[in-house]
């Protein structure tokens, strides 16, 4: 496949801004109310309202083809052991049954429609509402408590309360007939996650289903107890409408809703959701994936990263990644005593000029004080046609204003090659970590877990990434 770099014109801001907006997922990611993304036999699956769903081989390019029994609304999925438990709304939500909602669960061994083991079994109702009570049993969300293995289901919509029941993780059915617990109001599409001793309830506020006028936004409260009370950062109980913002409309996308956690380990967390309307795709509802950060104990959407021009700063030293060439003194002249006259700005270094003295072949990479040098600024550009990883395409990293590209070497080191060729050693997976810093991995060694690391205060290389190793974290800073 011919590699082609996505053009400046396509993404707009490269020529005028330092950051570029994140790219919408590739392929045909059209879905509403996506379930939590599940990995199955090397592929990713998410299911939506109506019965169908999306499949991706890399998490970047999505297309239809997933199949789910039951139809209905807003499914969710969780992996328990080597099986998958799926829930969906079989009635309610103002459909033919009004607000007499019902949620079903069922099991699957695989999501691959081509597998001989494909199929759904034990499909039955686990919770209903009568259409009169203050709840409409729709929009199920699973929560498998990592502290004890207990399984919960949260559900509901704007028609009254969000509620929680406990399920048997062996059967997927209700573990008892105790009354459901009211845990929130004024939201829908709820799910729970756990982090550092806290239980988090995430729900979607706002108006759904009005395309570009939808005001959907995802909010969160937390509790030390699995059943609440879930309180936001201002101390407002979600039973009184509280909720700290996780993500709202941004860029040219409107109405984020239906959060689903994607925990890839080693401080790489992302989340799936849908936008009610992607203006770049005619206002259609699309799947989206963003990094998930944790700030002061709260989850928040990460950078909408699409590339741009940056300095790449080492968390270890605070120094910046640079091409191993001789620095060129900035042409400044200190004014003499008593000198008057207009003060002129000093222009940035012209990379076309200073690069004339750079060696023609491969050049080593170093880490050094940031001194506004042209060889310390990097342009990160998404590359089309080479696949991607969860939620993102691969990027090339070139010295700004040049085609000199950062590359991995066969002996697991880094170097700058004279020109970008599209080889996998020159493609980079850039994941924002939960603290907002970045992990930078070459495509050629990503599966083995190698990432750019400051192995010395001033020396970069590639080592196997560990979240505990601050030397493998980088900041991307607009120069």
């Amino acid at each position, binding site marked *: 496949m011919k590699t082609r770099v996505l053009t400046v014109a396509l993404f707009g801001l490269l020529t005028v801004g330092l950051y570029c907006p994140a790219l919408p997922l590739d392929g045909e990611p059209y879905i*509403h*109310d996506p379930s939590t993304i599940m990995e199955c036999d090397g592929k990713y699956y998410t299911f939506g*309202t109506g019965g169908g769903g999306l499949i991706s081989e890399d998490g970047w390019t999505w297309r239809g083809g997933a199949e789910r029994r039951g139809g209905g*609304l*807003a499914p969710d999925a969780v992996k328990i052991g080597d099986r998958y438990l799926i829930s969906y*709304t079989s009635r309610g*939500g*103002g*459909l033919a049954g*009004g*607000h007499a909602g019902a949620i079903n669960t069922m099991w699957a061994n695989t999501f691959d429609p081509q597998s001989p083991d494909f199929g759904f079994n034990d499909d039955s109702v686990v919770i209903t509402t009568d259409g009169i009570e203050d709840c*409409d049993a*729709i*929009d199920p969300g699973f929560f498998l408590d990592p502290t004890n293995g207990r399984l919960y289901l949260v559900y509901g*919509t*704007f*028609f*009254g309360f969000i509620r929680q029941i406990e399920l048997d993780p062996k059967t997927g059915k209700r573990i008892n007939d105790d009354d459901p617990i009211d845990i929130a*109001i*004024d*939201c*829908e*599409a709820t799910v729970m996650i756990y982090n550092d001793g806290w239980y988090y309830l995430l729900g979607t*506020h*706002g*108006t*759904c*289903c*009005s395309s570009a*006028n939808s*005001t959907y936004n995802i909010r969160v409260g937390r509790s030390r107890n699995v059943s609440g009370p879930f309180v936001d950062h201002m101390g*407002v109980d979600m039973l*009184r*409408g*509280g909720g700290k913002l996780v993500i709202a409309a941004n860029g040219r996308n409107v109405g984020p809703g239906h959060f689903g956690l994607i925990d890839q380990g080693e401080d790489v967390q992302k989340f799936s959701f849908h936008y009610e309307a992607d203006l770049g795709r005619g206002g259609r509802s699309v799947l989206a994936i963003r990094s998930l950060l944790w700030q002061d104990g709260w989850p928040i959407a990460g950078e909408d990263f699409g590339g741009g021009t940056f300095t790449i700063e080492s968390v270890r030293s605070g120094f910046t990644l640079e091409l191993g060439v001789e620095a060129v003194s900035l042409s400044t002249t200190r004014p003499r005593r008593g000198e008057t006259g207009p003060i002129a700005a000093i222009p940035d270094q012209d990379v076309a000029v200073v690069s004339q003295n750079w060696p023609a072949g491969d050049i080593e990479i170093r880490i050094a004080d940031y001194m506004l040098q042209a060889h310390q600024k990097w342009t990160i550009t998404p590359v089309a046609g080479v696949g991607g990883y969860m939620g993102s395409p691969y990027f090339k990293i070139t010295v700004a204003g040049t085609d000199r590209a950062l590359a991995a070497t066969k002996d697991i080191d880094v170097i700058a090659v004279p020109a970008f060729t599209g080889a996998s050693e020159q493609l980079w997976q850039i994941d924002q970590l939960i603290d907002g810093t970045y992990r930078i991995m070459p495509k050629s060694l990503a599966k083995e877990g190698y990432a750019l690391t400051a192995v010395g205060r001033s020396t970069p290389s590639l080592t196997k990434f560990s979240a505990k190793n601050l030397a493998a974290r980088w900041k991307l800073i607009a120069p």
Partner: protein
Amino acid sequence: MKTRFNIVMPVCGVLAVLSYQGCSSPAGGSAVNPTVVNPTVVSPSVVNPSVVSPTVVSPAVVSPTVVNPTVVNPTVVNPTVVRPTALAASSMPPYFEPAASGVKAPGPDGFLQRWLLLEPIPQSIRSNAVFTESYIRNAIGTEYFPNQFTVVPRDGDKVKIGDEESVWHALDSNGFNVKLFRFAEAMNKPTYSILFWVVTIVDSPREIHDVRMAVGSNSASMWWLNGQEAVSLFGDRRMVMDDCVSKRLTIKKGRNIIRGAVINGPGLSDFCLRFIDEAGEPIKDITLNLDTI
């Protein structure tokens, strides 16, 4: 997945203004001027604020301090007659109880839970996306019954709106929020596409300065204290406590009248209201007493 509501309503006009969740808290409050009402303008039998196109009146040119009422069949059915509230007792709990005589303190967090609620006035609202400021001001500013911005009703009072009678009910809400949807349901009235008028009386033992009226409502609403517009909630809103708050206000010593109007299309209408001090703490040394009417 958003609840899809089973209602069929006429299609409204094309939207040109996006309904967003803005608040309005007029500085110092603005008076409702009942003299603005034009009693000669009558739109018989149809209460349809959707005929006021939100595309015609830009929010920017609508004065936030003036409610521009339009009279709709202002027939009053013996407003002086006090009738007992004929509640569907079995369907009111657990949401409401008939208001007891005597005084009622605010709830533990200061929410006012004793109100006079007027049975809902039908509207023509297909989608809450129409709830721009201009739409809300026109819809609520429409005069549906005489003196609607000044009347202090009693339990059982009736008003006639178009061909329909609506009754005021004095109720205590069992929750911090007043569940208007459940009220309408218990009255066998429409629950969607409706406008509620509510009134309560606050007695204060002292003059309290620098308080704020804090409101949450589903969906849009407007609120007045002693005839002055205090705070308004525009857009398709969910009921969140302390969602919008007024500028600093003064609660008079003695009787204070709070009046509100909550409008909704498809949705679970409710509201919560309390007063908070400079530190955001609830004002609780006040009482509610509908007997004083």
